[in-house]
């Protein structure tokens, strides 16, 4: 047993963390995350030059990582910095392109930005009820319907769209310049888009792709859960710092046991989350990936709410101000729950598993 990182991953973690700390300070992040294009194109360039995206793909596909642990190392670092760059779309698109045996140099180098479009207004989390459907075949496929809340979609050049073909989920490539894309900023910083498809030309990437899509979603879940651990850790550190500094009634508020125990409960939940991220990352390419991914996403949803709300509460008024970075951590932690399935969705998946057994 060994829970330490390999040397390679530690180097990756160190260089990413240093880069983000240098270039992506909270003030800069808050500035770029809320103004179009809702990320920093120059820093996207530098981040990709560092090889952050290559770390997300296996060697056979041109990368140098691609395991669950590579993903969690990258995303925990991104989470610590609340980084709004569209890395999640790149990760999930890379999984889909990899499964199709397609070229992904342009993706991994950061030259072309990809986003993955799964959610729909009536099917925010569930692959089983998507409604966007493909028409035609061969060179003449088109898609119609609406995809919603596509993270990174506001700057994506290529969308990988999940749509039904012959009643089964399939993956299609849609070029942003051939579709109606409505980009927007998010409450927690960063951007997303609506994709309005109306007989929009599309190229088939993967037919009958339910299992592949699930595996890409699982990779995305490990990423988001690791991001959540990064975010929660910083929110907790900021809270403990504040408990040490803020004085009321002649003492630092950290002397109040009513607050001490709650700060400890936050820590406990974060450690539990970290453990399940490790487990889900370890199982990512195994037969039980979906079960552990459901568990970790459900857990970070719960833990995230506790951490975000308690961190704000223990800061008092300062915790609900825009100027102080904690508010942005809290928003990101909270709204991350609504990406790739919220707590209830994943509990439902686990419950379905009990019924099936």
């Amino acid at each position, binding site marked *: 047993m060994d829970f330490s990182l390999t040397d390679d991953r530690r180097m990756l973690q160190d260089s990413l963390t240093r880069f983000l700390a240098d270039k992506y300070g909270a003030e800069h992040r808050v500035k770029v995350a*809320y103004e179009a294009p809702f990320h920093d194109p120059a820093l996207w360039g530098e981040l990709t030059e560092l090889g952050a995206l290559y770390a997300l793909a296996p060697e056979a596909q041109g990368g140098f990582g691609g395991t669950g642990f590579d993903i969690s190392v990258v995303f925990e670092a991104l989470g610590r910095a609340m980084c709004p760059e569209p890395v999640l779309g790149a990760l999930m698109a890379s999984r889909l392109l990899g499964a199709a045996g397609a070229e992904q140099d342009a993706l991994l180098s950061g030259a072309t930005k990809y986003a993955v479009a799964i*959610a729909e*207004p*009536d*099917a*925010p*989390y*569930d692959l*089983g*009820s998507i409604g966007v459907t493909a028409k035609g075949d061969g060179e003449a496929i088109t898609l119609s319907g609406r995809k*919603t*809340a596509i993270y990174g979609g506001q700057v994506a050049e290529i969308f990988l769209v999940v749509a039904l073909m012959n009643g089964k989920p399939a993956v299609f490539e849609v070029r942003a310049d051939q579709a*109606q894309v*409505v980009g*927007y*900023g*998010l*409450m*927690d910083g960063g951007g*997303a888009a*609506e994709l*309005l498809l109306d007989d929009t030309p599309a190229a088939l990437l993967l037919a009958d792709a339910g299992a592949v899509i699930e595996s890409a979603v699982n990779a995305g879940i490990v990423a988001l859960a690791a991001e959540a651990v990064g975010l929660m850790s910083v929110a907790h550190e900021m809270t403990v710092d504040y408990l040490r500094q803020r*004085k*009321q*009634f*002649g003492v630092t508020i950290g002397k*109040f046991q*009513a*607050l001490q125990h709650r700060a400890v409960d936050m820590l406990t939940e974060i450690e539990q989350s970290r453990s399940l991220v490790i487990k889900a990352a370890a199982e990512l390419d195994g037969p039980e990936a979906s079960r552990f991914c459901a568990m970790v996403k459900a857990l970070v949803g719960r833990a995230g*709410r506790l951490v975000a*709300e308690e961190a*704000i*509460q223990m800061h*008092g*008024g300062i*915790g*609900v*101000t*825009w*100027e102080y970075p904690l*508010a942005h951590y*809290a*928003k990101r932690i*909270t*709204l991350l*729950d*609504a*990406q790739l399935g*919220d707590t*209830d*969705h994943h*509990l*439902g998946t686990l419950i379905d598993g009990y019924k099936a057994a």
Partner: protein
Amino acid sequence: MELSYSAEEKAFQREVRDWLAYTLPSHISDAVRRGGELTKAIMEEWHALLHAKGWLATTWPVEFGGTGWTPVERHIFEEECCRAYAPRIVPFGTNMLGPVLHKFGSKEQQDYHLPRILNGEIWWCQGYSEPGAGSDLASLKTRAVREGDHYVVNGQKTWTTLGQHADWIFCLVRTDPEVKAQEGISFLLIDMKTPGIEVRPIKLIEGGHEVNEVFFTDVKVPAENLVGQENKGWTIAKYLLTHERTNIANVGFSMQALEEVKALARTMKRRGRPLIEDPLFAARIAEVEIQLEAMKITNLRMLFQAQQQGAPGPETSILKIKGTVIFQELKDLARRALGPMAAPFPGHVTEGNLMFGPPDTEHNAARYFNNRKTSIYGGSNEIQRNILTKTMLEL
């Protein structure tokens, strides 16, 4: 035991409901329903309508132009206002300063200020908190030094709600730094146009501007603007605190929010079915509905007690704690029901006339985040627990 309203109370309820249906303009109730920030113009219009009817000052006795209502009547009125999507009135002049002036104000102060609160000529804000004095309010440092017929005020207030719109501010200031903290505080009325006052906005978590910092540099305040006696301001502050405690359970707003959550859960879909059929989500709704039903009665029990004893007691801290938690939970459920559709920044998804989610939901995430404030201000929920620990448990 009789849980229902008396015949007179029911008639009163009918009257309020009819009046609201007839008088509350739809552009105002629509704005409330949408859930964004309400403009000063809207608040002025609403205050004026209430004032014209004589229903603005619901906590004032009749002789000062108030309604003279009992706590139960006030409760009915607030419940009906919530039901009709009327705005909550701006409390600073009417609900906070008014009662203070009735009890502690000079005749001149009453004659000058009370009518102007009612007719909307003067808008008030509350200058209590300071950067270093939040929960520990008595440690406030803003200094007022008596020089002849005026005070000279130096220092800083913060978190001043709606200070950007206010004409006057009522402040707690330190007039004697030598004595025990609570014994050197005075209550001053200050015209915001006085030279030396600067108001700077504080942007809140969701991006809105409702609070401010207020800086005082050698601000000359006429001595006649002192309320009550010098160094007796803490008594006034404590008196005001009990008056602040009407409607802190937020029952009306929570009932409204519960209906909204249920409607949303019928609209939104999960796994091909309405969300309300998801037992996990339905259980969340049921849990909070149970709390709210209990809270309605807890609130009425405490109203009844206040009516019997003449003033709300320390047990009303229970209303503040539970009331805010219920409301916050409902805001969480609304955001949760929308799923990823709650995430856009309000106002962003308008291109191409694209209606992003169900009507009136674009502010849901913003409201959830903004309402984290309710367990922080007005005495945080931790401070309320401390009060209960001391007064009810005597520990």
